[in-house]
């Protein structure tokens, strides 16, 4: 007779070569990202988050999957849709929310804002608001690791729209020629801002179909399946770490909100959103975990802990004073100042 | 609103506040007498430019400051008080909002030097001039177009410091005597004379005029005039009247010299030189003299001379002259070569009418008669005109004085 525990241990067997701990931490990462992004949305509606904000609702699995496969001394680079990636590297929630609110407790004390989340201490080497700019920079970090012989890896996240800009091509070419330990991960969420990517791209898979132009293997994955992402991430990070050169990975996913907070995304065809909501990465993963025999109680307690953490972080961020004017002339130069004359 | 030292006269650069009629904290009404100023030209009362509270007095009674310097601040109701202006600084104030400056060209500093080609005073030159209380008219300009350069000012300061030659007693030279500081008017006159003499090539022409016709009119109407007006008709109004006619025909003599052009004036504003005793000269101006009848001229002249002698001239009274006449009637001199009042190009001197024997041409032959005769002397600016023109003008003037129907002119 099969007991529950038998089913569980069967499910956790090495055919699913992801151990229990990793699975739970993947789940936790997905939850944290989802909860913080939802909270960011609420705060925006309360007019506490000013300017613009690009949420990763629906795209959590890519960030979580890769983060779980990285070493803490690896480097990540992402776009202005970077809350997920920054959180996934371990940056504190209060720092992320605080930065969105423009407070002193922000990761960059309010100097950068939502589009530039950076936590060098966690290897999150910046979120970049000019499309494509960070790909060459990711190369540089990889080159540095290669030069210093440290086997660190540089992972670079960007959207489908990036694959058509010049810097993408320059970076891929150089990475391949110099055999740099860098992964280029394209989160293809089907839209380049408000335009379907297919209408402006010469190939069907905007990233994967270009890999061969750089002597790289085309890799397409389901970006909403955290396990699938994790496996691919683990494999190719290992490849890069072993000095075997770069990879270009295309992860298909979907953003369930607009391009930015300001966008209600009315350009989507009817039914598309519903179709993708049915494949929500969080719901998908939760039900897989249950199927694998994880306890409901375990999951609930993680959910509770994450919720509490988000609430605490929110209160702490709200309580933090606004960024003081004294910061305006700080940190242009390494000496902390901004003097251009004597 | 800032109250600034007004410019009371074209060449006036500074003034002394003599009396404040209000103190800090007093209510002030626009137009109300606020303070009194003395300059080398005039003493005058200045009204308040706005209503409000006198919130600051920056210059004390007895203090001499540059034109344009902020003297006081009136806080107007409903208007925020800005940063308090500094009291007289070394660098002179040039824009005077709310200034009572009379001259149109209060924006320009040193108009006298402006008219002499060395117009542009650079910031450092202005600063040095203000710091050392210099008169640009005294500084030789060696820059392009006669511009005063910084080095010129520094050289000037050096020369001032250096002990003078034997002709000028400096400190400590053993030549006993009493030092008499020059009055402001004297000093100013001295500067003006020196500038004029230095920059204008003077040529003097004299003409002898028979004043018989004038004399006859004076004799006929003198008593009645005296009874009516309380003062006597002198020769001067007749000369002034004749001058206006002649100047209309010789417009170059009624002009301003501007370096590369002449500004030919359309009216005659006649300056009347008035001697103020040891103090110096002042030249009040009869505006639009060419529009005045002889009696009006006489009265205008009389009024100005009175005001001048009693130090009551208003700022408007000493500006915008186009030609000057200097009457040295009672000096006993034969003729005088006067010094031109820049930017004018000529000046006329009349040295008293005396009875002299002259040769008369008549049908029967020559004879000697005694007539009232005066020498009219004109100094003219040889840059602007030549001897033939000046002489023709004098001939015309003579003809008018000797031939006009003066009784009708007297009305």
């Amino acid at each position, binding site marked *: 007779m099969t007991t529950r525990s038998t089913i569980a241990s069967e499910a956790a067997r090495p055919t699913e070569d992801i151990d229990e701990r990793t699975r739970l931490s993947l789940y936790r990462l997905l939850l944290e990202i989802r909860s913080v992004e939802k909270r960011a949305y609420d705060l925006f509606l309360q007019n506490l988050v000013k300017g613009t904000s690009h949420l990763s609702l629906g795209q959590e699995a890519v960030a979580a999957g890769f983060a779980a496969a990285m070493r803490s001394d690896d*480097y990540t680079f992402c776009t202005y849709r970077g809350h997920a990636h920054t959180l996934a590297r371990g940056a504190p929630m209060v720092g992320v929310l605080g930065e969105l609110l423009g407070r002193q407790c*922000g*990761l*960059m*004390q*309010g*100097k*950068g*804002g939502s589009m*530039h989340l*950076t936590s*060098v*201490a966690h290897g999150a*080497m*910046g979120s970049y608001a*000019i499309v494509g*700019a*960070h*790909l*060459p*920079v*990711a*190369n*540089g*970090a*990889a*080159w*540095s*690791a290669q*030069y*210093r012989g440290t086997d660190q890896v540089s992972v670079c996240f960007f959207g489908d729209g990036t694959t058509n800009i010049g*810097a993408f091509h*320059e*970076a891929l*070419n*150089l990475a391949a*020629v110099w055999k740099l330990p860098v992964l280029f991960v394209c989160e293809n969420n089907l839209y380049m801002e408000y335009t379907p990517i297919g209408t402006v791209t010469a190939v069907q898979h905007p990233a994967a179909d270009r890999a061969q132009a750089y002597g790289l293997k085309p890799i397409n994955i389901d970006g909403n399946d955290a396990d699938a992402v994790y496996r691919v991430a683990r494999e190719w990070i290992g490849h890069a770490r072993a000095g075997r050169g770069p990879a270009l990975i295309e992860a298909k996913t979907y953003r369930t909100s607009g391009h930015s907070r300001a966008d209600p995304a009315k350009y989507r065809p009817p039914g598309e959103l519903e179709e993708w909501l049915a494949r929500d990465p969080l719901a998908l993963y939760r039900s897989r975990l249950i199927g694998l025999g994880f306890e409901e109680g375990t999951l609930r307690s993680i959910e509770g802990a994450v919720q509490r953490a988000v609430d605490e972080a929110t209160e702490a961020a709200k309580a933090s004073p606004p960024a003081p004017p004294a910061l305006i002339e700080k*940190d*242009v*130069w*390494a*000496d*902390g100042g*901004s*003097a*251009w*004359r*004597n | 609103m800032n109250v600034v030292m007004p410019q009371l006269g074209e060449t006036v650069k500074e003034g002394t506040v003599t009396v404040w009629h209000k103190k800090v904290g007093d209510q002030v009404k626009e137009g109300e007498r606020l303070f009194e100023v003395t300059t080398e030209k005039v003493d005058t009362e200045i009204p308040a430019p706005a209503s409000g509270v006198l919130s600051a007095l920056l210059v004390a009674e007895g203090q001499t400051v540059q034109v344009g310097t902020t003297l006081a601040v009136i806080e107007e109701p409903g208007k925020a008080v800005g940063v308090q202006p500094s009291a007289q600084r070394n*660098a002179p104030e040039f824009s005077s909002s709310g200034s009572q400056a009379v001259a149109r060209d209060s924006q320009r500093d040193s108009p006298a030097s402006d008219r002499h080609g060395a117009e542009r005073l*650079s*910031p*450092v*030159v*202005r*600063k040095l001039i203000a710091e050392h209380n210099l008169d640009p008219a005294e500084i030789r300009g060696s*820059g392009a*177009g006669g*511009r005063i*350069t*910084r080095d010129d000012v520094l050289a000037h300061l050096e020369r001032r410091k250096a002990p003078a030659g034997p002709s000028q007693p400096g400190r400590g030279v053993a030549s006993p005597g009493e030092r008499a500081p020059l009055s402001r008017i004297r000093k100013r006159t001295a500067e003006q004379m020196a500038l004029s003499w230095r920059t204008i090539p003077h040529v003097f022409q004299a003409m002898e005029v028979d004043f018989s016709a004038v004399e006859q009119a004076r004799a006929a109407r003198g008593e009645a005039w005296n009874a009516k007006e309380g003062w006597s008709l002198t020769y001067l109004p007749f000369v002034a009247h004749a001058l206006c006619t002649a100047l209309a025909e010789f417009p170059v003599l009624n002009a301003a010299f501007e370096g590369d052009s002449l500004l030919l004036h359309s009216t005659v504003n006649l300056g009347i030189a008035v001697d103020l005793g040891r103090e110096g000269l002042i030249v009040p101006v009869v505006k639009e003299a060419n529009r005045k009848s002889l009696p009006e001229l006489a009265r205008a002249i009389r009024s100005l001379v009175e005001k001048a002698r009693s130090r009551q001239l208003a700022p408007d009274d000493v500006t915008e002259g186009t030609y000057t006449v200097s009457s040295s009637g009672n000096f006993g001199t034969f003729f005088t070569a006067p010094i031109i009042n820049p930017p004018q190009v000529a000046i006329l001197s009349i040295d008293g009418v005396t009875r002299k024997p002259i040769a008369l041409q008549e049908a029967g032959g020559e004879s000697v008669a005694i007539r009232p005769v005066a020498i009219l002397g004109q100094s003219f600016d040889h840059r602007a005109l030549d001897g033939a023109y000046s002489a023709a003008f004098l001939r015309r003037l003579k003809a008018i004085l000797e031939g006009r129907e003066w009784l009708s002119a007297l009305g």
Partner: protein
Amino acid sequence: MAQLTYREAVAAGIAQEMERDESVVFLGEDVADAGGVFKATVGLLERFGPKRVRNTPISEQAIIGAAMGAAMTGLRPIAEIMFSDFLAVCWDMIANEIAKARYMSGGQISLPLVIRTANGAGSRFGAQHSQSVENWAMSIPGLKVVAPSNSADVKGLLAAAVRDPDPVIVFEHKALYASKGEVPEGELVDRLGTAKVLRQGNDVTLVALAAMVPRALEAAEQLDREDKISATVVDVRSLVPLDTKTLLAETSKTGRLYTIEENPRLCGWGAELASIVAQECFYELDGPIVRITTPHVPLPAADALEDNTIPTVERIVETVRRTSG
């Protein structure tokens, strides 16, 4: 003392720093085997090997991006952009990314990198290969900018730039590469943010940069000989940080400022210096500030045209003579 050409001094400066510090690396187009299109980096590959001296594809954005990524993760890269005109090709990397990364990250990101590039006209390369664009860099907060005029300065300022913890753009002048100058033996490290007074005079102050410096000196000689006008000549050397103290002091002494700029007229570096002097030195001025610049046109290619577009010694002399009265 050694006599080095400007280009030899460039290589010597890079070599000095690479020798001293293993984290210094060098990348660019044709810089390795070929020794650089201007032969300014000859010998470096042989001395330091292909790991530290790297040829790149024609990919300005990739070059500068790689320098940025390497600098933020522990290296001190020197990146070459062959012609300063090409800074426009990777201007996003320079102006939007490198210049702002430290600030936007709240001080977390460090970018001790150097971009060196060949600036300036006189080589008949035409409008897209002859510009003086140091003023572009001057106008972006977060970039340090130097433009040396002679061999010793280029070596010393390059070394100082490598050692500086902030991004520095070194504008070498392509027409100066062959010029010779005395360079002290041994280690040479100059200081950013310092101008040099090359000649002291009483009447006018000429302030110049890079290839205009020798012209200013020649003009000063001529003015002295022919017009008895005594000129101070200041080599600005560093636009950011700017040595305003020297600028103001030397202008106050004469009361007359002339800037001699190879960049086109509008928003040239001299405009900023003129405005600083007009504001902070106003009461020392004995005459208007005059800028002597290339007119506001793209540069023509023909030698007869190019030579008469950028400021010549004759034009400098004539302008000073005409306006200094």
